[in-house]
């Protein structure tokens, strides 16, 4: 009876062979996940990879086609009601009623969780306090900044004191400062023992927040592990530099192809070129300088760095962490912490 003592040992989320298609589009093609209680799983992938579909199935919004998914031990299809009592969900946009105040928003959610009026009120006060919204509690939510709205949205997802929290791209569209604030809040939730599944397009976000990361692309898990393990896949350090004269990118790539362990990668928009150099570190850096100089290519910001998840994604998929545009065009994602306003919610 291993299951008897096993409630604590059972994963909070267990997904086996999950599939889902929309007409011709195979959004999920057999996904496996296991998230131990009290940990954070980062689901990383470009737009359209299947992240949101997976979250929608796990939160009972969408029926899977094949495979099974358990949340807190409850089957998301057969025991959807029990799943709903165990989870909280915050999606890509702030799902709040903008005309109402922050307090009213939370009180109404509390009532819908069947709390009594006094308890719903109390819960709203506590959450507003916890999320630094007490001063704005009685203002209409439409007067809030984007960051405040997302905090209110996150607070709303916690009204029911969920054991498992799903955050679908919680910082998409936020400015860098609000993003850092959001990260702090998310960390504090995890410290309280909540199990968290977080989807993101931002590699640094998964790196910062998640214990385990799975990388999803085209409906399949293409890699899983800790951030360090995934970085280990790249196999060592990376030499990276910028070519100010974009027309010389080709020459630069040819020049450093000899020193790299894999194919160099060049971003034509930003002029950033990178190549994995294994364990040869500074030796490779010197060679890079020599080869680039020999080819007469002027470069800036030449550096040796530890691999980022960006490099991991590149090594795993052969393309950068991109977003699929609705018209099928692919577009490179900028590196680093800068957020992009171009992210749109794709129908899924």
């Amino acid at each position: 009876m291993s299951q008897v003592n096993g409630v604590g040992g059972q994963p909070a989320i267990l997904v086996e062979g999950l599939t889902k298609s929309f007409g011709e589009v195979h959004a999920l093609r057999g996904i496996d996940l296991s998230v131990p209680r009290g940990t954070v799983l980062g689901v990383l992938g470009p737009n359209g990879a299947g992240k949101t579909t997976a979250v929608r199935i796990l939160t009972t919004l969408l029926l899977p086609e094949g495979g099974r998914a358990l949340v807190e031990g409850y089957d998301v299809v057969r025991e959807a009601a029990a799943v709903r009592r165990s989870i909280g969900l915050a999606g890509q946009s702030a799902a709040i009623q903008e005309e109402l105040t922050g307090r009213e928003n939370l009180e109404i959610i509390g009532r819908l969780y069947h709390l009594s009026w006094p308890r719903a009120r109390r819960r709203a006060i506590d959450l507003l306090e916890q999320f630094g919204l007490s001063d704005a509690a009685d203002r209409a939510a439409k007067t809030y900044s984007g960051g405040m709205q997302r905090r209110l949205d996150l607070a709303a997802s916690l009204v029911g004191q969920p054991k498992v929290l799903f955050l679908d791209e919680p910082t998409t569209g936020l400015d860098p400062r609000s993003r850092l604030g959001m990260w702090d809040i998310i960390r504090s939730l995890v410290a309280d023992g909540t199990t968290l599944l977080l989807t993101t397009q931002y590699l640094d976000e998964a790196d910062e927040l998640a214990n385990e990361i799975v990388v999803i692309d085209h409906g399949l898990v293409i890699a899983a592990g800790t951030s360090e393990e995934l970085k280990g896949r790249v196999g060592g350090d990376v030499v990276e530099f910028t070519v100010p004269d974009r027309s010389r990118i080709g020459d630069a790539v040819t020049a450093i192809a000899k020193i790299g362990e894999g194919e160099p990668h060049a971003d034509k928009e930003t002029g950033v070129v990178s190549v994995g150099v294994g364990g040869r570190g500074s030796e490779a850096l010197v060679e890079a300088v020599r080869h680039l100089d020999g080819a007469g290519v002027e470069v800036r910001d030449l550096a040796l760095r530890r691999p980022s998840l960006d490099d991991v994604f590149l090594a795993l998929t052969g393309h950068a962490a991109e977003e699929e545009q609705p018209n099928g065009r692919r577009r490179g994602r900028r590196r680093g912490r800068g957020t992009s306003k171009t992210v749109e919610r794709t129908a899924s």
Partner: protein
Amino acid sequence: MTAVAERVGAPRSEPGLRVRFGWAVTDTLTITRRNLLVWMRVPAYLVFTVIQPVMFVLLFRYVFGGAIPVHTVGGYVNFLMPGIIAQTAAFATFGTAIALAQELKKGVIDRLRSMPMARSAVLAGRLVADTLRMLITILIIIGVGYAVGFRFTNGFVPAVAMVALATVFGVAIAVISAYTGLAIGDEESVQAFGLIWLFPLTFLSSAFVPISTMPGWLQAFAKNQPVTYVIDTMRGLALGGPVEANLWKSLVWLAGIFVVFSPLAVRAYRRAS
């Protein structure tokens, strides 16, 4: 071995039918309250709902009305008001479709569907709140009608019955609107063409002119469509005259709309994404 009951995957004891019905009622009331709060916070909603029918009353009463010959006790204004009231009820449902499309797009409906609340409550609460809103709008328009010379001439009870029929008609259209809003799921599209069919349906009826003034081919449509049945019944209730035949036809049509579109709306809500 008591822990066996906690076996992972074992259904937790689900609340009984009575408890769940109680929740469905309180959840519906909570959603209704929320929607009415939103409505009261934005006075513009009321103004926009009311201003269009008021302009129609004034336009037809004072501009076109003189050119439209009717044989109605009290003249054209009495002919006009039941038509305007029915149209007001129908057009008030734009709000239903737009609000649901907005909530869908913003993820509000996703959040509510992921919560352990009654799934029927979001639609039910929307319809209850919108019916109250519609009723208030109708009463305001009747007030405006009285100011420009309209009078109920058939007594109090039939007048109340007329308002009730207009409301039931409005709710039927609201169910279609709810379905449209959820199925289209995009505020701008809903606004642009989601309910555009309401215009021919209300104008090609007995709402503004006697059908006998229309060309023959148009009469064939106008005479036999539900909006005309409803408006002719309302006129009979407001001003006196035969009611029964039109009332039955109205009720059959309205029942048909509920039977067809309620399941469609519920299905659209369940599948909403």
